[in-house]
């Protein structure tokens, strides 16, 4: 690959690491949230739904700033985590993971929720009549039948996490080797007069990865549709 600096390669590798870890955390969390939204009935559900989807409509900078206020070293939760557990997110790659999870959550939750809602509740009833408790029913019936949505959600969430910029740079800044992802690297390169070539190349790479993820999610969805018909 011509003209890519070692720093750019580091940014690409970091992006993949952040996106992969964010997806690993995001999918189980999203599955629980999606289940609550799909099957739960409680007061304030619309508000809860709204909160999850908020990062989708807020300027990413606001989300990043909120994370800084909550999870920064002096933040409400951040200070507590630092003192009691020695966990720090601010200006660490783990903070980039948190930002990516929060930003990709609405997308993953939505895909999984639609899939869970498509599962026939009468099958869950039949499972109960066969002696399976709610937990067993979830893992043996609901979850496997929602698998297409979970895979599609994971793919889209991964792509979103790879491309996340606003919340990440606000929350954890743009530190080479620690928090400089592809997006931050493109931004940095575009700000310097000699960085044009690198910015373009990284942009093309980012576009290719994003497109590949979208195609993959469509292929997965189609494959499951065919398998189930």
């Amino acid at each position, binding site marked *: 690959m011509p003209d890519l600096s070692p720093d750019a390669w580091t940014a690409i590798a970091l992006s993949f690491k952040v996106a992969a870890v964010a997806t690993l955390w995001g999918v189980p969390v999203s599955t629980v949230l999606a289940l609550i939204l799909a099957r739960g009935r409680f007061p304030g559900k619309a508000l809860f739904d709204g909160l999850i989807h908020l990062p989708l409509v807020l300027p990413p900078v606001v989300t990043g700033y909120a994370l800084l206020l909550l999870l920064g070293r002096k933040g409400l939760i951040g200070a507590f985590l630092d003192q009691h557990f020695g966990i720090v997110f601010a200006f660490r790659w783990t903070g980039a993971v948190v930002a990516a999870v929060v930003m990709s959550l609405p997308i993953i939750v939505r895909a999984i929720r639609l899939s869970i809602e498509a599962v*026939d509740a*009468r*099958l869950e*009833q*039949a*499972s*109960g*009549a*066969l*002696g*399976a*408790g*709610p937990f*067993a*029913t979830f893992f*043996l*019936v609901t979850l*496997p*039948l929602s698998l297409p949505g979970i895979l599609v959600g994971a793919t889209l969430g991964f792509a979103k996490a790879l491309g996340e910029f606003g919340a990440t740079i606000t929350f954890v800044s743009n530190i080479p080797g620690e928090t400089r992802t592809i997006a931050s690297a493109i931004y940095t390169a575009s700000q310097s007069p000699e960085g044009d070539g690198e910015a373009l190349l990284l942009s093309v790479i980012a576009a290719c990865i994003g497109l590949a993820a979208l195609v993959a999610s469509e292929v997965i969805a189609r494959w499951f549709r065919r398998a*189930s*018909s």
Partner: protein
Amino acid sequence: MIDVEIHQRLGGFQLDVDFSGDGGVTALFGPSGSGKSSVIKFIAGLTRLRSGRIVVDGAVMADGQTRHVPPHRRRIGVVFQEARLFPHLSVRHNLRYGRLFTPRGQRHIAEGPVIETLGIGHLLDRHPSTLSGGEQQRVSLGRALLASPRLLLMDEPLASLDAPRRLEILPLIEALRDEFGIPIVYVSHAVEEVVRLAGKVVVLEAGKVARVGSPTDVFRVAADRFEIMSVIEGRLGPPNAPFQLTPVETPAGIVWLNGLVRPLGREVRVLVHATDVALATRRPEGVTIRTVLAGTVADVPDGSGPSVTVDVALDGGSRIAASVTRAAVAELGLKPGRPVFALVKSVALDERPL
């Protein structure tokens, strides 16, 4: 053994039901909207009981406000109108599903005999979506049974199948009843199914128990003469192959069934609509009717309409109801004690559920 007592309002509908069932099949019979399926949901635990009591095999499943065992802890199997097989599991794994949750010591129903009785051995590696409706319902029966439940609920399990499919599944339910000894509560609005399967019928009308008794007793009384039916029990004789008829031997005479029905010697129940029965004071000659049953008039109800339903005690103890005109009753002088012959159009007799 099952004891059910339900007093509960459901929407605009008051359900007041009290019945018990023994080891065999107890049928809940009634028109749609009479509350049959609601009763099933209470027994299964899918609806919470607030006033009443449900006891199965000595275990209290629900008792007013104080006790509600969740559905998955009741060990009560349910066969629904739709098969509800798990689409992501093979037939084999569908069948084994309930077993996972049955305590080891209570798995008293073995896979082999169930698969054999239901004739689903060749389907084990298939997926539910590739099965026909009848095959799916057979697997569903097996799946419920293999959880070794203490009670099996069947909520119109044949209603979504066509007539030939029903005729194919009905004997299987009969066989399950006889071979595995699990008490069954069977919901249906089809008289034919109920007569064939049930030892006891609970008739529901508008949320109340209207009548309880054996199929023979229950179906002899009905408000509408087209709904009055008699059940005659007998034993299959050797079929008449050239004419495609099978005799059912009863003490009062032979009832001819359409078609060749086997096996020889099997005890069967035959259902006769009161409107398909005529009465004669002498054994008639020169008529096309083949089935002539001897008996005596037991009851001629008073009435002012054009027709009455005459109750005839057949030789051997069965009863048959005949819907005849009041004019004919007067002309023939039909009154209790009078020997008569009940003439049944053979073509009306069939084993097939309508």
